[in-house]
């Protein structure tokens, strides 16, 4: 039976001693998908990858590759390849020898090896480097060799453990685009580990956000950003303001939260119940600041605030305001009015802050 | 078979450990245990404490003390010579540093017998030094430089100096010089910077060198024989004598055991100081 999924993790647990590095994680990764594992340092991303690759055995639970249990099949018999975080190139072999290694192990013929190595090096745009040793190459070039070495084997799934972590910002951006193109062109499933949320958002089809061994949410970048299912995800992805309060009303898809005697309305998050305390989460770019004179104070989610500080940061102007004893970040995209200090808000002034209910989210506390 | 080997770490371990482990137990550990047993047995293989009673004869106590004293002094002098030399080497430009290293390596790898003999040849009564001094007219009679404890010590320093310089050099080469600047930036003047920063960080090398010098010194036989002759005796010569001329195995074993205990005590001190770091070769 052919499975709908390239890789499946079913209730996987991995313990090191008493620590559960991966704690009851289930996820399904679709064929040809660019799937990112995102989370802070030490949350168990690498451990997940190592279990899929076959370097670690789960303490309990099951892994399936195209519907077939991986069991204790050793790493070298799995049609899965890894791009290591430190690249792990063989220092005593040339680039060509590195790339040829996997094919040699499979017993592929000499001529075919030569052809496929050349193709792979073309793919990563390093054809003239075949006879160099890894030491003689820059970090970015080594990274491409590691990629070629894995891809040349035509794996069903490619595992990448923070492959861009060691590159400088500009190279990183370039490689992000290239990797994504390559993945679409080759049609291979990529599982990509990163702790850079921006990288995950721009590259992936779907993202799994992890924290302390748990898979908190799996979804498209849009879902993860717009509809985080818990405070951790909302906080980890992008910037967010959290206002603590108590849920006073639930109607349809919306919930009303009482925050410091103000009633604020947002979309209803998972598991939020009437009367429970909750977080109202609003992203700084999703609120508007207007002159008090022009505002309608009785409109939904509209309140008077005090401006605390104003800072110009290139694309935005970042304003910190006080709302009922809470500090909130508000980002205003720069335009003529924000750039003219005579017209824009100044610290100490009062202003009216508002946001539509759809731009806020009520999350369980 | 292959899968069995893959599954069973115990089996893998056995395959790796057994050949070497077996060899070391049979041809190293077991013989040492023999020494322990034999030191309590007389020629008729009956229990005796005679060997140890003889060790406490003032004559032998004296030899032990002299050996320890000479070895300690050798180690300290070697250390005092090696540190500036290694420091000088570590501060040389790359090309010169390699040449200097090469110059230390050659005696390091050169036959110990030959080197000690070369020194003895130089220092003989009719040797080049004496002839040179007489020819210049500084002395009338040849100086007698051999067959004294000092001669033994010179021989030991000469013989073991490369074993001190190399580890000290290695630790100095790895030393991050900006740390000294950091210390001075924080207000430490030269000497405190040296004692508080440089010395602790290079201590592993100094300790390795010390143990690599002390052990061969206290057990020395060749040097004691060639440089000390009949006059300045070290434990090594006494032990060898019990198995060659005297044929008193009980006494020889007892002496060997005590020598082992002394060395072990110093090694333990070394491990304490070095926090268990191993001698790097």
């Amino acid at each position, binding site marked *: 039976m052919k499975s709908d999924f390239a890789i499946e993790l079913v209730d996987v647990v991995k313990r090191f001693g008493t620590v559960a590095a991966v704690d009851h994680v289930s996820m399904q990764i679709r064929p040809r998908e660019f799937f990112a594992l995102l989370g802070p340092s030490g949350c168990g991303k690498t451990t997940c990858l190592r279990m899929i690759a076959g370097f670690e055995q789960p303490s309990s639970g099951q892994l399936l590759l195209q519907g077939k249990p991986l069991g204790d099949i050793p790493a070298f018999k799995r049609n899965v390849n890894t791009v*290591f975080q430190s690249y*792990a190139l063989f220092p005593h072999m040339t680039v060509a020898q590195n790339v040829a290694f996997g094919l040699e192990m499979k017993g592929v013929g000499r001529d075919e090896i030569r052809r496929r190595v050349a193709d792979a090096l073309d793919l990563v745009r390093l054809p003239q480097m075949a006879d160099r*040793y890894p030491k003689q190459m820059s970090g970015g070039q080594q990274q491409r060799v590691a990629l070629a070495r894995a891809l040349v084997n035509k794996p069903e799934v490619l595992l990448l453990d923070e492959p861009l972590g060691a590159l400088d910002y500009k190279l990183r951006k370039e490689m992000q685009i290239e990797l994504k193109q390559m993945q679409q062109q080759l049609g291979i499933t990529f599982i990509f580990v990163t702790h850079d949320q921006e990288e995950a958002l721009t590259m992936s089809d779907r993202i799994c956000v992890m924290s302390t061994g748990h898979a908190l949410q799996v979804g498209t970048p849009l879902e993860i950003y717009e509809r985080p299912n818990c405070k951790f995800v909302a906080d980890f992805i992008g910037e967010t303001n959290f206002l603590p309060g108590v849920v006073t009303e639930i109607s349809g898809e919306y919930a009303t939260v009482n925050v410091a005697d103000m009633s604020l309305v947002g979309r209803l998050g998972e598991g939020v119940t009437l009367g429970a305390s909750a977080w109202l989460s609003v992203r700084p770019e999703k609120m508007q600041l207007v002159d008090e004179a022009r505002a309608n104070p009785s409109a939904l989610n509209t309140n008077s605030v005090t401006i605390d500080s104003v800072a110009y940061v290139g694309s935005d102007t970042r304003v910190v305001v006080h709302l009922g004893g809470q500090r909130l970040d508000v980002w205003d995209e720069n335009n003529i009015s924000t750039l003219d200090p005579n017209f824009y808000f100044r610290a100490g002034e009062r202003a009216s802050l508002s946001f539509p209910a759809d731009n806020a989210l009520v999350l369980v506390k | 078979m292959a899968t069995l080997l893959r599954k069973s770490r115990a089996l893998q371990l056995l395959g790796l450990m057994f050949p070497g482990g077996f060899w070391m137990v049979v041809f190293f550990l077991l013989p040492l245990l*023999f020494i322990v047993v034999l030191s309590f047995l007389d020629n008729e293989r009956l229990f005796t404490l005679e060997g140890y009673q003889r060790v406490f004869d003032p004559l032998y106590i004296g030899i032990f003390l002299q050996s320890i004293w000479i070895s300690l002094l050798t180690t300290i002098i070697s250390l005092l010579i090696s540190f500036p030399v290694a420091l000088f080497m570590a501060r040389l430009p790359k090309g010169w540093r390699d040449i200097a290293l090469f110059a230390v390596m050659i005696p390091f790898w050169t*036959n110990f017998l*030959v080197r000690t003999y070369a020194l003895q040849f130089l220092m003989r009564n009719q040797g080049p030094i004496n002839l040179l001094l007489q020819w210049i007219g500084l002395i009338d009679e040849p100086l007698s430089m051999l067959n004294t404890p000092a001669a033994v010590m010179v021989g030991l320093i*000469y013989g073991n100096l490369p074993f001190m310089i190399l580890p000290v050099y290695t630790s100095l080469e790895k030393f991050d010089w900006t740390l000294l600047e950091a210390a001075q930036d924080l207000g430490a003047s030269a000497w405190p910077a040296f004692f508080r920063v440089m010395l602790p960080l290079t201590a592993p090398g100094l300790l390795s060198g010390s143990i690599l010098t002390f052990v061969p010194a206290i057990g020395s036989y060749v040097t004691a024989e060639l440089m000390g002759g009949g006059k300045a005796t070290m434990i090594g010569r006494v032990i060898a004598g019990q198995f060659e001329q005297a044929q008193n195995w009980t006494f020889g074993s007892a002496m060997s055991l005590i020598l082992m205990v002394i060395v072990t005590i110093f090694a333990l001190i070394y491990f304490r100081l070095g926090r268990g770091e191993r001698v*790097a070769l």
Partner: protein
Amino acid sequence: MAQLVSASSSAPANVAGESRARVSAGRLVLTTITAATFAFLYVPIFVLIIFSFNQAKSGATWTGFTTEWYAKMFANEDLIEAALNSLLVGTISTLVAVVLGTLLALAMERYSFKGKAFWDGLLYMPVIIPEIVAGVSLLLFFAFIGLERGFPTLLAAHVAFTTPFVYLTVRARLADFDRSVEEAAMDLGADEWHTFWRITLPLLMPGVVSGALLAFTLSMDDFIISNFVKGVGWNTLPVYVWPQLKRAVSPEINAASTMLLLFSIFIVVLSLVLQRRQSRI
């Protein structure tokens, strides 16, 4: 010392002159000590080489140049035989020690097991136990189990005291080993066997080679242990030359020493060349 430490500080302009004077004074002291030390290490060796070409039968008076002693040495069948014996024992024991030591290093570095501390200690002991004690213990051991001394006992002893040095060298290299390259190999379809031969061993090779050179030199150099365990008529080179060094009757021994010296230099050069080659990777 203090001067040199302050060499790295950036003194303010007004004291720069004084500080520079201190620096160069420190430099001078270091240079002098280093030069003196190298003279101390090399003068005896050079004098020995020079006098191996001296006509005089005894004493250090220069009476003229000759290569007679070299001719005599090469005609000395006992000496040649001893040299060949040394090479034979050195080669075989090195081969065995390299295998045993490497396996032990793999086991000790990569597995955890009960009694590991014991093996840790045992494999370190040969560095600490004086050779004289090891030699005596082997003599007793072979005598007690009634094993006739000869080539096999010599070989067993040499393997036993060289294996730990190979082990320590390889283990040091293994400790720095980046295991992710092995995982990468497995990931690319290499089983444990292929991974070992294609990845682990080649990367370990510098350690194995230095270990082998060390083992070979130790074996070639060894006098004390060999002297106790060799059989009658089974001389190694150091054992053969020892009585003659002590009596120093003939300059022939100077010639033999010079040859040994050249051999050591050859080994150093070889090891450096090998290291160069390895460090390119």
